[in-house]
């Protein structure tokens, strides 16, 4: 999954993530059980050196599990980014945006077409006016 295989679907990517997450959470629970035992000891008597060392070791192990989950979610996002579903969505949204812009231009062009008609009328008017001025000279 880390390589973000293009054949992976969202469903398969999320399934892999969920399975790996469950394993991580299961290990976290085991560590927490050990931590609770140590806590009970610490509340009743001073922890000895070995127990203090174990406390640090458990915390370090929990830290590794956080890192593992961080890495897992990061790889999940990388894999999703390369999925065919994202490609499909990009194609749909780009095509839709293109169509909307084109229709907006079409609508804007209606007034432009009337303006062209107006310009044509003005040109013809100018020609007729010119011809009118020429008539006395031709007579």
């Amino acid at each position, binding site marked *: 999954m880390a390589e973000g295989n293009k054949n992976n679907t969202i469903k398969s990517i999320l399934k892999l993530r969920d399975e790996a997450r469950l394993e991580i959470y299961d290990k976290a629970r085991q560590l927490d059980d050990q931590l609770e035992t140590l806590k009970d000891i610490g509340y009743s008597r001073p922890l000895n050196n070995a127990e*203090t060392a174990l406390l640090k070791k458990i915390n370090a192990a929990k*830290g590794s599990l956080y890192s593992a*989950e961080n890495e897992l979610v990061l790889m999940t996002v990388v894999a999703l980014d390369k999925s065919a579903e994202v490609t499909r*969505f990009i194609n*749909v949204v780009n095509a839709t945006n293109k169509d909307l812009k084109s*229709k907006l231009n079409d*609508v804007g062009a209606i*007034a432009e077409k*009337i303006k062209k008609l107006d310009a044509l009328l003005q040109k013809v008017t100018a020609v007729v006016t010119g011809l009118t001025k020429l008539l006395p000279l031709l007579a």
Partner: protein
Amino acid sequence: MRIVWRRLCVIAPCAVLLGACAASDFSKPVTDFSDAAKKAATSLTDYEKTLDQAAVDANISYALGHPSALRYPRGDCIQGAKRCRLIIRGEGGNEINLDPGPVDPRIRGAMAAVVSYVDNLKAIVTADNAAAIKSASDAAAASAINFAKAVDGYNAQKRSGAEKLEPQVSALAAPVSAALTYGLTQYAETIKVQALRRATTAMNQAMPEFMTIAGTVADSGLTSKRNQLASAFDNANSAFIEGVSAVAAARTKKKEKTDKGGDDDGTLPEIDRGKIVAFQNAAQAYDASLQLNASQIFSDLAEAHDNLTKAINEPEISLDEFAAILQRVVEGASKLNDISKSLQTASTKK
């Protein structure tokens, strides 16, 4: 009849038949949806930044364990070089940048395209073509009158005895211009409403899947933030256990001393109050992060788009219902942003 009435009431300004709807009738729902989508996109960006940083942190952690893997490419970072980049060289010789850049460039591009999509929808519903069409039609009518005057002038010069054109054109110009304006405005509205229908229908098919992806990205970013807070909680927890143990040790020592006839000042060693406060603060920050659902706003946004599509294509849903969903998205995004900032503050306190 009641059903028909309810349907007609849904998009209030939308005229009796669906085909007579104007794009501007959808202005409010489209604008509201656009605002909500942009807020969701901002939330996503926040989580993506967290993931980018997590990727850099992971590489730095690797470099801590494998210092010799931290290099720079040959030719980089020397006098005359064009670049200076740090890379991690793996055992197989593969190289990656210490800062790999955005973790999800295509998803970011897709979300940016969604923002463009809502901007385009908004542009369609807010475009005021009627004013431009009226102005152009009025100008063309005035030109037609001028043309008639010119023809009349020409005929008079020729002494053709032809009937004057200008009064006839002047009489017709205003109603023809009004009819032209009305007809073309209706035509423009038809194009716009059809464009809205086609766009929302196409996007509605793809939106739920992409919103699942966006929700997963947000959830991943939240996981990364949450684990920082979990780690801060563990440290506070350990400090508390060690503090309790130290108090137990001090009490044992004192008891041994008094048992041997030493002075007893009547006090008992107690755990430092600051350790309990720190433990409580760490628990509260972690608890707040555990109660967040980062992906919810994206599934809400997909649902809101579905309702928007229905409202535009076949107004079956109540706009009140639609507004309630959008409100959830906006509030969710604001809440995430607020909590995200407080998480940032809490995690830097560790």
